[in-house]
């Protein structure tokens, strides 16, 4: 067990997996000589060389397509989006090629590709650089989407993502890179598709992922002082959803609040809420509450940006609503 930064944990996962399997390569903007825009790939060029750690021109669609093509001939590409904002430019390659080549070919091909990078709003980066796009990817049939919140989950989930054989979206919290946490030594994996109860409680279930998990845990502590004992579930994998864990929790608490940093309409929270109702209609003592980013482009000004995103106050208010307080 060592205390590592989230970015260091990801770096370890990349390094260990690349040592294990020579078919794995890392491709993206500034991943090599620059050691990564957020230093996640620090030192990888030195260790693995320019053949396996490849800097690209600014062509997200192009190099994502290149990664898919390489996967079609047996390689295992890891494509870094400098930030997920730019993945929109690769969306056609992801939607129409990465996830469909296998099906269209009747199973002749597989596309084991990890598309990873930082996501989520980040300090005053404004409308074009500050947004949560995970729900867009979650809608696509055949895509798995992962969004770890802790260094331990980041390393273990990235290893699982790299080892599985299908296109997967791996969204790192841009604001989490410098957060610390205990990480088991050496090789371990965290299974894809498993949520985790990060805090036990009996009164209400707060469901969150990525940066919002930290908010949820903070809120849970505040609520405890108020005598409200909140259970906090870290979704970790957004798709496929681990309904067993979620249902186990809401059956116990009868109440759920979903905290989501992105836009509300057609967000992941909508899917989860609907499915929970559908599978445990009678378990709910109150409607599911959703706390999300507001449906506006992200403003630059700090004070407006803070208002645009979920706050502790809004989460607490939502929890109290579920408790009819």
């Amino acid at each position, binding site marked *: 067990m060592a205390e590592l930064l989230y970015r260091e944990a990801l770096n370890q996962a990349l390094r260990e997996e690349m040592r294990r399997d020579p078919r794995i390569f890392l491709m993206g903007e500034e991943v090599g000589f620059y050691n990564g825009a957020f230093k996640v790939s620090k030192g990888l060029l030195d260790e693995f060389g320019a053949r396996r750690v490849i800097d690209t*021109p600014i*062509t997200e669609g192009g190099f994502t397509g290149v990664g898919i093509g*390489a996967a079609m*001939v*047996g390689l295992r590409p890891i494509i870094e989006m400098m930030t997920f904002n730019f993945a929109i430019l690769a969306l*056609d390659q992801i939607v129409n090629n990465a996830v469909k080549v*296998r099906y269209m*070919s009747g*199973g002749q091909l597989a596309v084991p590709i990890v598309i990873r990078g930082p996501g989520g709003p980040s300090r005053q980066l404004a409308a074009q650089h500050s947004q949560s796009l995970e729900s867009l990817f979650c809608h696509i049939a055949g895509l798995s989407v992962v969004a770890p919140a802790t260094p331990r989950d980041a390393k273990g989930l990235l290893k699982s993502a790299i080892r599985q054989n299908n296109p997967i979206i791996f969204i790192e919290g841009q604001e989490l890179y410098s957060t610390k946490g205990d990480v088991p030594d050496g090789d371990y994996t965290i299974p894809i598709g498993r949520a985790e109860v990060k805090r036990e409680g009996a009164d209400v279930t707060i469901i969150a992922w990525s940066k919002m998990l930290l908010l949820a845990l903070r809120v849970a502590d505040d609520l405890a002082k108020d005598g409200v004992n909140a259970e906090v579930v870290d979704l970790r994998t957004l798709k496929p959803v681990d309904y067993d864990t979620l249902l186990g929790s809401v059956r116990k608490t009868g109440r759920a609040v979903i905290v989501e940093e992105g836009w509300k309409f057609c967000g992941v929270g909508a899917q989860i809420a609907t499915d929970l109702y559908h599978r445990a209609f009678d378990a709910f003592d109150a409607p599911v509450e959703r706390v999300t980013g507001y449906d506006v482009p992200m403003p630059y000004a700090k004070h407006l940006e803070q208002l645009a995103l979920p706050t502790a106050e809004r989460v607490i208010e939502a929890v109290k609503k579920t408790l009819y307080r």
Partner: protein
Amino acid sequence: MSPAERLELYRQMVLIRRFEEKCAEMYALAKIGGFCHLYIGEEAVAVGAISVLRPDDYVLSAYRDHGHCLAKGSDPKRVMAELFGKQTGLCKGKGGSMHLYDVERRFMGGYAIVGGHIALAAGVAFGLTYQQQDQVVLCFFGEGAVPTGVFHEAMNIAALWKLPVLFVCENNRYGMGTPVERASAIYDIAQTALAYDMGHSTVDGMDVLAVHEAVGRIVTDMRRTPRPYFLEARTYRFMGHSMSDPAHGHYRTKAEIDEHKKRDPILLFGQRLIELGEANADRLRTIDAQMQQVVQGAIDFADTSPPAPPEELFTDVLA
């Protein structure tokens, strides 16, 4: 190239032609559905170019892909069965006309998003270089794909990284109803390679030997010194853009088509073989008859093949 090899090229072109003429019939009978884009008139490009390749070289194409798939050696039975949407099709009926795949023969697919597969082709070439293999990749696309952003992103990457991919632009003068003059700022499409310091040239896409020779030179050089190349093949589509499009909408005249049909690649090559004394009219007729049999065999196979079982809907989504 030996007389036998030349006859083989003729055989392939005739196979593709007869195969697709039947496709048109089968489409009319609703045995084939979806979008179906015929390659009739352009056979010399696929046949001439692919004839240069080794079996382990790779080919990717757009949605007008029957010809490339057959030229790469796929079994006409399984291609037709795919068009019929049958279990015995190359892709179990999941891909259809626009998405043929025959990975065993290194035919890595037909793609329906204009330009999208060009990046995949560069990726296949990247994969080969990464694994220090000496195969090459042929990527076929229409001149309509040249304005797309992804084409340019792939061109730059391929040139920058010296990837062994030959970009074969099948310039048939039209993208659906739009003549190249109204879609591209340059008429001489090969000129686009200047933006990437990439080797490039133009070839008569109606002359199968010219295509064979041009691609031969390029591929030999590419195996020696890996680097991409851009080849513009000037050709012409005799049929409508797809089965749902008349041969000549008001975007081109029947006279224009007839003019081009005088240079029908099969006609031209047949005459050439006769001039060379490598075949006579009878021989060519025999080949034609044989190919019609092969195609009929494909039809019968497709017709009598079972459809994919319902469970297939949910398979092949994930590996």
